[in-house]
């Protein structure tokens, strides 16, 4: 059973085809990585999966359900969550408030305009526990915009996890994190519950090979090759693509 699947997915902008007939299958419980050189169309693909963009052709399936025409927030309520390459946080809220907000929305309590935010003890407790897991216990009540980058990065992932997703899309989780704090993020990612299917979009090969049990390579908008980490590592075509890119730099 595939947790997430695309069928002949295609996106055109005028003459450019950043997503060209992509058939991606992510198995349930997988640690799946999507790699590819710059400009391969990774960001477009993520935006198609999450509903930020509408495809020109093809379908997106979440489990057995066709979600192609659903808006981003509906996909979230069906169990899909994502993180962003560049932090997308609520700067004016505290980490506790941000996480509690996500939990409240998950439980469909977000329209309760007569209740006080934070009066639901279950939600506050769950948010506190989660914040601790992500190393945010000491900054629970600080404004998010005043936190150091590493903490913000942790919160970025915590917000996605707080929605209890079945499928989680991680867009370069360690991007911009200084070397010294990198392992914390990677530990967090490695410790994600096995019930969650993870699709990791990543540039850094060390992270990919340390984490993934399956890898898809995207080149020029097309799925170039797919396989186990071992196969990918030894695939001469993949090496050529990456070596070629390095030579360009």
């Amino acid at each position, binding site marked *: 059973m595939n947790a997430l699947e695309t069928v002949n997915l295609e996106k055109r902008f005028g003459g450019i085809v950043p997503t060209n007939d992509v058939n991606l299958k992510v198995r349930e419980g997988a640690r799946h990585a999507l790699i590819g050189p710059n400009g391969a169309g990774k960001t477009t693909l993520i935006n198609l999966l*999450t509903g*930020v963009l509408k495809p020109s052709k093809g379908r997106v399936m979440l489990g057995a359900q066709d979600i192609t025409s659903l*808006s*981003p*927030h*509906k996909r*979230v*309520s069906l169990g899909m*969550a*994502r993180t*962003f390459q560049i932090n*997308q*946080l*609520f*700067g*004016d*809220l*505290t980490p*506790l*408030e*941000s996480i*509690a*907000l*996500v939990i*409240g*929305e*998950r439980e469909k*309590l*977000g*329209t*309760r*305009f*007569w*209740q*006080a*935010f*934070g*009066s639901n*003890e279950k939600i*506050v*407790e769950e*948010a*506190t526990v989660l914040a601790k897991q992500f190393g945010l216990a000491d900054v*629970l*009540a600080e404004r998010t915009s005043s936190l150091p980058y590493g903490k913000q990065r942790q919160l970025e992932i915590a*917000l*996605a996890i*707080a*929605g209890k997703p079945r499928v989680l899309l991680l867009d370069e989780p360690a991007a911009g994190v200084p070397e010294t704090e990198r392992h914390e993020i990677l530990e967090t990612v490695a410790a994600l519950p096995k019930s969650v299917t993870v699709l990791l979009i990543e540039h850094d090969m060390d992270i990919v090979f340390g984490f993934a049990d399956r890898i898809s390579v995207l080149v020029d908008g097309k799925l170039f090759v797919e396989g186990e980490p071992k196969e990918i590592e030894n695939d001469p075509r993949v090496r050529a693509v990456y070596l070629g890119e390095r030579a360009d730099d």
Partner: protein
Amino acid sequence: MKEAAAALKRKRAWHWLEYVFWLAAAASIFLLPSQHALLTQIAIWSLFALSLDLLLGYAGIVSLGHAAYFGFGAYVAALFAINFYGEPVTGLLVAGVAAGLLGLITSLLVLRGTDLTRLMVTLGIALVMYEIANQMSWLTGGADGLTGMPVNPVLGVFPIYFITTNSYVYVLVVLFILLVIAKRIVHSPFGYSLRAIKGNPLRASSIGIPNNLRLIAVYTVAAAYAGVAGALLAQTTPVVSLTYIDFQRSADVLLMLIIGGTGYLYGGIVGSALFLVAQKFIGNVTPQYWEFWIGFALVVIALFARDRGVFSIFERIIAALRKEKAKS
């Protein structure tokens, strides 16, 4: 865990300054009888600015045409009183519901575009409402205004018609009740989701918040609030005229809110008090001076305070002085 819950509770609790403010407002009923006409105006503008704060301060929607709902509420209240029933609270409810409905319908137009299109569409809606009120003179009195609105005693017991002090009490009570409700709303999960949308709409939708539905809801509530404010003015003034809907009113309310600062509900009250008191003193000298200084105030606020009100200028000066001190 306990501390976390306590921290959240502290945010929505009443600040001691709020108690002081409302005690002072209650005291003004007895202590400032000569100023009740002005205070009534301030309270009505406060409610109008509060309604804009719900939009701008909490949901981040800039409106240049908020007077559309204010004026609509005023006309509805007046026409309802003339044709059906002259009890004021009933009039407020009818005006609030009607303006809310107008807000609900027009929100579908407003929320489609970006910042700039929103500005234009809100402005356009107010202009269209103005034209409609102007053209339907058989109903609204057109440029001459609408007069002869009966104002019965409030709830049948408290007469306010041409009784300045009673009018003030009535308006103040309405402002208090609606502010308490607004406070409740902005500190609810719904209110937090609005702040999330304002802060980062992209993230908000990717944690499952249906942005547009929430914005439509708050736009409707804000329009209803504005309609109630308009109805209050209609009930306490002898004539409902086109100035209730004109651009000047939309600009003034935005200015008042900005002077007082957005996003803490009392900004509109502070701003309208400062604005109207200043207008009374400067505007009495010559109207041109008034326009010049109001423009000057806008430029200065835009340069230095952004949307956090006059107090933030002082705060920034103090913060800068402290920094200097710390250095030396």
